[in-house]
Every structure is written in C-alpha cells, then in structure tokens.
C-alpha cells in the first residue's frame, strides 16, 4: 500500500486542521458579506493590517516594549515568589511567620489593584511592571513552597546518612525534587503575566501591544484590534512553548518525560 503520510506526520498535522478550517470559513463568510467587516474583518484584512504595521516598524516597537515589561515583571515577581517559597518550604520558623500573610494577600485579585497602582505610580512603566510582578509572584510562590514541602523526607534522611551538607542537600535533593512543581508554577505565571499586561496596557499606556489595540479602537480600525489580539495569543503561545521546552530539558529524568 502506498501511504502518503506516516503516523508521525499525521500527529503533527492533525491539530492544525480545525484552526485552518475555521479561518477558511471565517474568510468565506466575511467575503460573502455574512459578517460585517466592522464587527470582524476578514482574515486577509487582518493580515494586511499586520503587514502594514510591520512595514512601518511600529509593530516591533510595541512588541519590544510589551516584552520588556513582561520580562521585568516576571523576573522580579518570579524571584520574590521563588525566594519566599524556598524560605517557607525549608524553614519552619519562616513558614510560621510568613505563610499565613502571603496566603491572605494571595486572595486579593491583583487586577483589582489597578486604580491603586495608578495612584501610586501614575501610568508609567513602574506600575505595569509592579502589577505583572504581583500576578506572577503567587503561582511561583505556592508551587515552589509545595514542591519543597512534598520532597520525600526519606530522601533527605538518606542524604544525611550519606554525609551531605546543608547546601548539598539543597542542590542535590530539595531543589531538583521540587523542580516539577516549580515549573508548573512557571507555566501558570507566564499565563498570568500576559493577562496582566494586556489589562494594564489597555487601561493606561502610551505604548505596547495593548495601547496599539486601544488606539486602533478609537479610529475604528477593527483589523488592527483583531491583529493585536492575535498577537497576544501568539506571544502567549510562545511563552508556553518556552516553558514546555524548559520542562523537557530539565525534567529528562521524570518518568512522564521519558520514552
């Protein structure tokens, strides 16, 4: 028998069938006028808007600014959450002192703080980075803390019998044992990072992808708005792919990443 596609290729292509089909239907519906272009422009129109933005260089400027904000927020919030998670996971006194407070703060939806953040920092970058950092902090904290907490105590005892020092126990047993959970936190945090940035940029900004969308809305450029939304989706997907890559690289030893 003559097979055109082998199984691996089918597995690779299958997930794209539905999205491509949807876009095709969308294009057709827009072209025959079933969907008003003011409500939803045709995919080709969106693509054209994107190409135009790219040709003026404006697109890259906004992507760059948004990415920098996202990164700073992620780095600051991530480091604080990671540090607190380690501290509270390892030391009983620190957990006793801090965990309840952190759990209480966690229950405040960080986006509800936007008015306060604007009052504190104005509409500059500091406020947006602050919001992203707050959003990222908690998932990283919780998952680091839980990860450390759920490392088998038997392994630590074994490490002690084999003469490992405190730092050796940390680097060789605690941290790698907590890593799967920490990376789950990272993935969560990446999602929250984009979400926070979208909201922060659409509410108050003079640059960035969110600003691009809001600005276009004022001029009724629906195609640019849709393009900006797709851009967010794409960047979110990219962040997720990076997190996945990190997992497969760092968790090679894990049974669920083998074979």
């Amino acid at each position, binding site marked *: 028998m003559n097979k055109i596609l082998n199984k691996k290729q089918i597995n690779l292509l299958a997930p794209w069938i539905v999205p491509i089909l949807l876009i095709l239907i969308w294009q057709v519906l827009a072209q025959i006028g079933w969907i008003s272009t003011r409500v939803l422009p045709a995919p080709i129109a969106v693509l054209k808007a994107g190409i135009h933005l790219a040709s003026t260089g404006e697109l890259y400027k906004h992507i760059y600014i948004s990415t920098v904000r996202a990164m700073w927020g992620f780095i600051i919030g991530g480091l604080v959450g990671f540090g607190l998670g380690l501290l509270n996971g390892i030391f009983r006194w620190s957990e006793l002192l801090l965990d309840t407070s952190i759990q209480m703060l966690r229950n405040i939806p960080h986006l509800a703080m936007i008015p306060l953040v604007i009052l504190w920092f104005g509409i500059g970058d500091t406020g947006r980075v602050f919001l992203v950092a707050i959003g990222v902090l908690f998932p990283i904290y919780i998952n680091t803390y839980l990860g450390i907490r759920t490392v*088998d105590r*038997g*392994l630590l*005892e*074994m*490490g*002690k*019998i*084999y*003469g*490992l020092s405190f730092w*050796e126990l940390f680097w*060789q*047993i605690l941290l*790698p*044992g907590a*890593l799967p959970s920490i990376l789950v936190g990272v993935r969560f945090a990446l999602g929250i990072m984009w979400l926070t940035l979208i909201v922060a940029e659409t509410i108050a900004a003079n640059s960035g992808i969110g600003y691009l969308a809001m600005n276009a809305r004022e001029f009724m450029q629906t195609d640019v708005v849709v393009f900006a939304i797709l851009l967010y989706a794409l960047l979110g997907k990219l962040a997720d792919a990076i997190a996945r890559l990190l997992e497969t690289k760092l968790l*090679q*030893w*894990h*049974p669920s990443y*083998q074979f």
Partner: protein
Amino acid sequence: MASQLSILSNLSNEYMTMTYKGVDLKILELSKAFGDKKILQQLDLELAPGEFVAIVGRSGCGKSTLLRLIAGLETPTSGGVLIDGEPLGKLNQSARMMFQDERLLLWKRVLENVGLGQRGDWGPQALWALEQVGLADRAHDWIASLSGGQRQRVALARALVSQPRLLLLDEPLGALDALTRIEMQRLIEDIWQKQQFTTLLITHDVEEAVTLADRVVLLEAGGVELDLPVPLPRPRQRGDAMFAALVERILERVLNSKNVSRKQTANQQYIYSNN
C-alpha cells in the same frame, strides 16, 4: 561446582575475618521512648565483627527505631551504642543503611546515585560497586527506567561504594516479588562474604532470616526475646530438613510469645524469686 565455590569463599571468609573489616557492635541497656511511649527498654545486643544478624519481630515492636539508633539518626533515651568500643557520636560514619523504599534520586543517573556524597574521584569506585551488584551496564540510565529489583540493587551499590564496615538493612527486600527477593538474598550473602562487613538485617520473613543470618534475634516488647544461632552451612538450602525445623521453631516462638509482654515475664520472675 556451587559447593566448591562456597568452600573457596568460606576460606576467604576465614582469611578476611582475621583482618576485622566489620565493626564490633555493642548495644548496651539501650532504651528509647517517644514521649511516654516506651519503644525499647534496656536492650542488650552484641555483634562480632563480620557477623550477620537478622532481627525479626512483630510490626511496630521497634525494629526500625533500633536501626535508626545504631545509625545515629535518633538519640537514645538512655543506654548507648559502642562501635569498636567507642561510644557512637552524632552520625554513625562507619554505617550505611538500606530501606524498603530504595530512596534513589530520580533526577540523577544510576552512577551519580551510587556516588552520592562521595568526595574526590569517586567514578571508578562507584563503577566497582555497580559491578558488584551486576548493573555496571546501566550506569548511565535514569532510575525511572529500572525495575524494582534493579533499583534495590542500585541502592545496595550505593551502600557498598564507601566500603562500609556496618550495613544496616531495614526490610530492604520487603517490596520485591519472591523470585527477585531470592536473587537479592544470594547477592547480599555473596557480597557480605566478600566484604565481611558486620550486618544487621530486619526482616518479616523468617525464612529470609534463616537463609542469611548467623544469628536470628526476636525483638519483643522492647527487648531481645530470643537469640538463636543458625548453625547451618552456607549456602543454605530451603528444602533442607534442619532449615525447615529452624524456621518452624522461630515462627512458633514469634506466634506464641506475641501476647506475653516482657514486663509480665519480668514480674513473674520477680515474684518467683521472692518465693
């Protein structure tokens, strides 16, 4: 052939025991309580260098606690442990321990697990230990790709790599299937005969105790209830009549003495001597 080999290894045994590779272990009036729950009471036990002693006893009678005390992971309430005549410090440096759960680090490869905590150029020594347990060819595999029996063999290699003088085994074969368990018993006996470390094995399997040990000790109500030498030549045959009789005898003692606490017997003796 097998018996010739055993004669050879017995010869080398005698030669090796002269070098006193294993520690001399003395447990003196050792007591341990958690809160007001007394687990061990005035326990005395001695192991000669290179001796293999098996401890049996009902679940919860304090076998693991005893081993942890000898390893220096717990501190005694009173009494103590002497290693070659020296009181045991904080952690027993000459001892290595093996548990029922193999406690391997999934994020390290087999060889790195075996070399855990080793300083300097430990590679060759770790490979040697893996050869001892027949897993040298798996040195660079992840732990997750090994079977239960293989993992337990890696744990054994890890215990062997520093050439310990005292091996503490806390039901290490309890989770293995019957065939793998017999294989592991042979392996442990074989390595013990070569390395001549003093060995303390906890097991709930009386046959395993009689197969491996020079002496079988029954722990009951916090003390040694029975201390029985096993005078059978090695390697021991399970089908052997003497073997079966010994297993039967120990089993009976375990079952019969289960409701009699040591305190009661002590009281009875006390009353008796008053008369």
